[in-house]
């Protein structure tokens, strides 16, 4: 164990690190500036347990109905050795539907590293060595000189470096190798009605897919292959309209790839962040709640209302951010001239003299706003 790993284990407590999945990594792009989250997620802390312990339980419960529906749909799409899935994917990519495809289930087994190795070997086995693809091919469906047969890989175990740490991704995807390229295939049970899906769900699916594309590309690179053998076009398979019939859509995730990549690059190496974290910092859910809460407050957070949908610690951080304009949302804070503190906003609005010249403009704005508001309320 390196010093950093020891440090993280100490922060986390006795438990093994929580596994990452594409969702948790996608969530990292949501609040990039939050040190608290970077440290907790980097250490693999059981955040739901932590939140519960300090009296601010997260509410990310999933309905049984939704889980059942998701599983049923996925099973239906993957039935018959993926024959239907293969047809959907091939047709959407505009390549001839292969008569058959290898179906390899890479799931199962407990040792993560083992699984990752097995995935890597099988995924890259039939690929030509690097150099045979000079540039990214023009179209996704471009026939490739590589003649290896079509193959579907279910549950490949992929990894990514997150904040200086290697994490394994819970595999919730199918990688399709078709026409010489890999495509990430995501099966989601939210419907696409008249060509439109719930924008929030679609956006989340796109970022998660980008995480997989990135991880697959890293895997190829590490094995000496051209990363662009993995397409930036992701195949999203969803139920169509109000039926159970699956329909495939292509999703260009280039923008999301940049966002995820930038975020992973930008996330300071965890050891740099840890320098500023107090030596006795603990997030061990077994520790005393009061100690935990006090400990957490010593690592800076950056709460925003988006946290409510993306981080298990949101209710704790929201409570801590009471009285901050940012807790009302960034647009509110900006409309208040960027002043962070509600009390200060009201003081400036009430005409308190400003000493800081940088605040003069905001103060003038707030003073005028307060005068106009009072005036309108009085004359109404």
């Amino acid at each position, binding site marked *: 164990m390196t010093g950093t790993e020891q440090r993280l284990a100490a922060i986390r407590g006795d438990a093994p690190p929580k596994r990452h999945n594409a969702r948790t990594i996608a969530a990292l792009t949501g609040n990039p500036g939050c040190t608290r989250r970077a440290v907790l997620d980097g250490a693999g802390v059981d955040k739901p347990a932590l939140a519960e312990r300090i009296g601010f339980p997260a509410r990310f419960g999933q*309905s049984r109905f939704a*889980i059942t529906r998701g599983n049923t749909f996925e099973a239906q799409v993957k039935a018959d050795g993926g024959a239907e899935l293969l047809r959907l994917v091939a047709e959407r990519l505009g390549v001839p539907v292969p008569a058959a495809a290898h179906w390899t289930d890479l799931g199962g087994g407990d040792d993560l590293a083992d699984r990752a190795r097995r995935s890597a070997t099988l995924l890259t086995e039939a690929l030509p060595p690097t150099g045979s693809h000079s540039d990214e091919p023009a179209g996704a469906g471009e026939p490739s000189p590589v003649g290896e047969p079509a193959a579907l890989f279910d549950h490949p175990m992929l990894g990514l470096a997150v904040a200086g740490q290697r994490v394994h991704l819970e595999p919730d995807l199918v990688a399709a190798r078709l026409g010489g390229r890999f495509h990430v295939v995501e099966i989601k049970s939210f419907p696409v009605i008249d060509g439109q899906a719930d924008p929030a769900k679609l956006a989340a699916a796109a970022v998660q897919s980008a995480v997989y594309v990135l991880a697959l590309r890293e895997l190829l690179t590490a094995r000496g292959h051209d990363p662009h053998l993995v397409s930036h076009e992701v195949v999203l398979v969803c139920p169509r309209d109000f039926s159970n019939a699956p329909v495939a859509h292509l999703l260009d995730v280039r923008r999301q790839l940049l966002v995820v990549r930038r975020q992973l690059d930008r996330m300071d190496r965890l050891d740099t962040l840890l320098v500023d974290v107090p030596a006795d910092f603990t997030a061990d859910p077994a520790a005393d709640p009061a100690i935990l809460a006090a400990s957490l407050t010593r690592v800076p957070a950056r709460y925003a209302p988006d946290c409510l949908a993306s981080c298990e610690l949101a209710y704790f951080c929201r409570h801590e951010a009471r009285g901050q304009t940012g807790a009302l949302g960034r647009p*509110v804070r900006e409309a208040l001239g960027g002043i962070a503190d509600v009390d200060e906003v009201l003081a400036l609005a009430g005409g308190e003299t400003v000493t800081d010249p940088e605040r003069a403009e905001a103060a003038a704005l707030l003073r005028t706003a*307060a005068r106009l508001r009072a005036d309108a309320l009085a004359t109404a």
Partner: protein
Amino acid sequence: MSTLRALAAAQAVAAGLAQPVATVRHLHLSRRPLVLVPLAMAGEANAPLAAMVGSAPGEGRLLIVPQPRNRDQRFAFAAELAAIVLPYIDGHRTANEAVAVDRGRDVRYRYLDAPQLLVPNPAGVTFLRLLGRSTRFRRADGEYPVPPQVPLLGRWLTFFAERAEHPGSSTLVAMTQALTLHWATGQSAVEDLHLPALLGWIAPPAGLSGAEAAARAEDPSSCPPAGPATDPEFDNRLLAPAIEAYAAADDEATRVEAYAELERLLRDQLTPTWELMWRGLGLLRALPPGARVAGRWDGDRDAFTAHADHLDSDGAPQPRRDGAVAAAARLHRLERAAATYAVQRAYDDPLVMAEYRLTGEAFVGEVLLADPTRVDDSGRRPVLRPRIQLLTTDPVLAPVGVTLTSPSRPGQKARLVFVTPTADGKTEVVLELSGGMGRGLTASPGSVPEVGERLCYTTLSDAYVPGAAFPTADETPWTHGGPPASAAAAPDEQWA
């Protein structure tokens, strides 16, 4: 987010109570609105689970779907809902009025009143839109027949959902949106989507601050979500076993019992929201309506009349997607409506106008001098052009020469002639008036502002702007989406 609204939110945080951001009500409220609280089955494509619906607090009818994945039961639900919604709609088709069109050369008729649907939140609007989408193409004959009122309900729900996108329409209203139009809470916009928390901020129960009431409202076990999504805990712990028990019932007595249990569970989930809807309505009703609200409601009555006429004549369902011309025309209509709505709210409400005063698009000043008899004889004919001078403390950013209007004198134009800053940071403004003063060279009494009056002038214009012309569908080349192909969904489209 305007600075004034943000400031109100900051004040709400400090006060622990929501703060007004409007002094009048900006939407029409029907005397008998139909309140509809829908619940959907998690994970499914808009599968109805239950609804509470009615037009008076004590008349909430509960509809449930004991097996939400069952296609026939879904349509049975739609039929039951239709049996409430359609008579409610028809009740507004009794009396009409003649409206002059084409400069009085013709008349058309519109219903004196129109239906109004209230749902808890925007997700409720989406639920109705999708329910409309899934039912309007159904047929009473053919391979998958449904009760005849089901496709009719679908066409009406689609109409309501389309009106909901029209800025300023009050045909289908999401309660959370109606409330946040009038109050700013000390929480964020996402949190305001939760009706119980929002109402907690606006009208907390005695002994609690708004912030405390909102915090309580976040516990789904004591305060169920306002739908259509249910609380996952509720699904897993109570609903799933009850649905299973119903499915497993093999004799009539057990089935009746299981059904009653499902009803009880769903009623418990819906009743709190049902009550909040009427409380929200009460709060809104207590506000006096803005002067231009009735005019916008006329537009809703027009749209209602037109749709009713359409259903009476051929009644084809709305297409799945608009053609290119229809989409462009619709966008144009919505943009115009949005602009008009923004101006009208400012005209109706000094607190909304204050936002424009802050940005220099409006100012309020006191009349210092008035020359009501001033005549401009530089042209071919002498014309009455009184001038007034005002003193304002507001910033005046409008350029000289621009035409301003006062919301209290909308028929009169005021040209900005001079803008002179004074030594004490105020601004003197000279305006030249035209229109609204009667004929001749003498202003009719009261038509020129008098010394000492306080007036608001703004660059915002409430004047009618004619819309752009779009080709009819038949005149549209096929490259732009016309003539229209039948965009109907296949009648055998599954709903399972």
